[in-house]
């Protein structure tokens, strides 16, 4: 059940790191698209797991193993519910979004032939480009790119032109990590399906900001990372439609993913175990579900509303600064602002405001094609979370003014 009252003071108290000091200054953490901070409930869950529950899952008849297995499988059910997947066996735990993408890309090696085409968007993170390039090298398939416009939006009419019977898979992020653009993934999926192509949506930057329903989207694959979702590092989520997950072969061999093993032949376990070879990050998976509970207690609708307020405030304040250029000024975006100031180097700005305790990302954000489009070597990126405040944005603006003065 969602809270109707959104109390920023009590929310900030849930995150121990937000009270810490950096270089003698109060930390102002504005790099949430890189990783989000961890609420105490999640940290406690990790401590509690190793203090009370630690055992290997799915193997032991003993009490602890059964309890750990239950907690792990409950986590799977929570992610199923969160994403509205039809079955919990359609949720695979991986080590992160990159792992999830590689798992799917690897699964398509046997499904692609020379002359087949795969479609990527210009707005992708390198981790949603490189695994597919490797796939193309292995299979002889060709990669086509959905172009973007000056606002940082994908050009849908151009996408429609790229689709054909040769298209086998389309992969697009739900939200651009570098610009915050929310892509029309439902329409992208529905168009691809007209040509029988599968679609993978990289939801790493979407899941923390708004409700995602994979059944409504009709996504074939949907991937994300727990550490961008207020959970621990080292846990990724892969949703895949049962048909697809049955069709693609396992990515790694090992324990847990087998049905029967002889030296002549091994038969694989059913979903989801087929893709979870070896001992998974049990503590991390359980803690990730605690993070989901936390987000749902705050309420994704409350989060979206508050983050929009922060985004508008920060955008307005930044644009008051002479020489600021924001990249990607679409109206449909998450709380990410990518910008430069005149000829100042993003690295110089980031270095100076770091001394004021302010954490931002500078550089190409693992999305060099976007930087090339705008003809810049990089940008300063601030990415806001529901625990940030307008006061923090004011401090950012003051620090930027100071940097500007020092550098000019």
């Amino acid at each position: 059940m969602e809270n109707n009252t959104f109390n920023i003071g009590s929310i900030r108290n849930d995150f121990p790191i937000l009270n810490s000091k950096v270089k003698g200054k109060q930390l102002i953490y504005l790099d949430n698209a890189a990783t989000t901070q961890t609420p105490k409930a999640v940290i406690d869950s990790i401590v509690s797991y190793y203090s009370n529950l630690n055992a290997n899952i799915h193997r032991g008849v003993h009490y602890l193993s059964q309890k750990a297995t239950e907690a792990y499988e409950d986590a799977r059910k929570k992610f199923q519910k969160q994403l509205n997947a039809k079955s919990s066996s359609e949720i695979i735990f991986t080590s992160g979004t990159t792992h999830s993408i590689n798992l799917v890309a690897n699964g398509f090696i046997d499904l692609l032939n020379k002359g087949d085409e795969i479609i990527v968007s210009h707005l992708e993170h390198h981790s949603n480009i490189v695994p597919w390039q490797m796939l193309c090298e292995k299979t002889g398939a060709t990669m086509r790119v959905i172009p973007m416009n000056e606002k940082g939006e994908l050009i849908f009419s151009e996408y429609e032109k790229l689709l054909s019977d040769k298209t086998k898979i389309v992969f697009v992020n739900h939200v651009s990590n570098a610009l915050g653009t929310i892509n029309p993934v439902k329409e992208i999926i529905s168009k691809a399906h007209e040509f029988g192509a599968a679609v993978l949506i990289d939801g790493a930057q979407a899941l923390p900001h708004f409700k995602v329903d994979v059944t409504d989207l009709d996504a074939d694959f949907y991937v994300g990372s727990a550490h961008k979702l207020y959970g621990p590092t080292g846990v990724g989520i892969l949703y895949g439609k049962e048909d697809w997950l049955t069709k693609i072969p396992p990515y790694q061999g090992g324990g847990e993913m087998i049905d029967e093993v002889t030296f002549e032949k091994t038969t694989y376990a059913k979903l989801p175990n087929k893709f979870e070879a070896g001992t998974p990050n049990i503590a991390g998976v359980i803690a990730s579900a605690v993070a989901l509970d936390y987000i749902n207690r705050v309420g994704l609708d409350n989060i979206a509303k508050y983050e929009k307020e922060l985004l508008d405030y920060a955008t307005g304040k930044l644009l008051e600064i002479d020489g600021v250029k924001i990249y990607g000024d679409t109206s449909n975006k998450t709380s990410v602002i990518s910008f430069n100031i005149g000829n100042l180097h993003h690295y110089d700005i980031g270095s100076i405001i770091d001394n004021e305790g302010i954490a931002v990302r500078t550089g190409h954000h693992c999305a060099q094609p976007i930087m090339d489009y705008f003809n810049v070597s990089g940008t300063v990126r601030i990415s806001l979370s529901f625990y940030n405040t307008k006061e923090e944005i004011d401090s950012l603006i003051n620090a930027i003014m100071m940097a500007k003065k020092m550098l000019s």
Partner: protein
Amino acid sequence: MFSDWTEKYEYIIDLGKSLSVIDPKFKTPENTIKGCQSKVWLHAENTDNKIIFTADSDAIITKGIIAILIRVFSNQSAKDIINAKSDFIEEIGLKQHLSQTRANGLSSMVKQIKLYAIAYSNK
């Protein structure tokens, strides 16, 4: 030496601004130093058995840091450059102001300067 971080940064920025400009023809991919977050070019010339370094960066703080290195290493003999200790980087408190990636960039610059000296001493 400096009362707070702003003075230190202002000093580095001023050094960056005063760094004599590298001839654009030397801003080649071969003269680019890898391992830096910003673009860095370093060129070396051997004149009267002294090595003269010129450099540039698109980021002014990086340029200031290179200026310090050039002030120390330029116009020295190859032998002196090779034998020079680079402890002064620690001593002036530069490294503690840099993040790990930036400190790596600084190490790359020192390494490149020493490599030039080794190359010239073998000629």
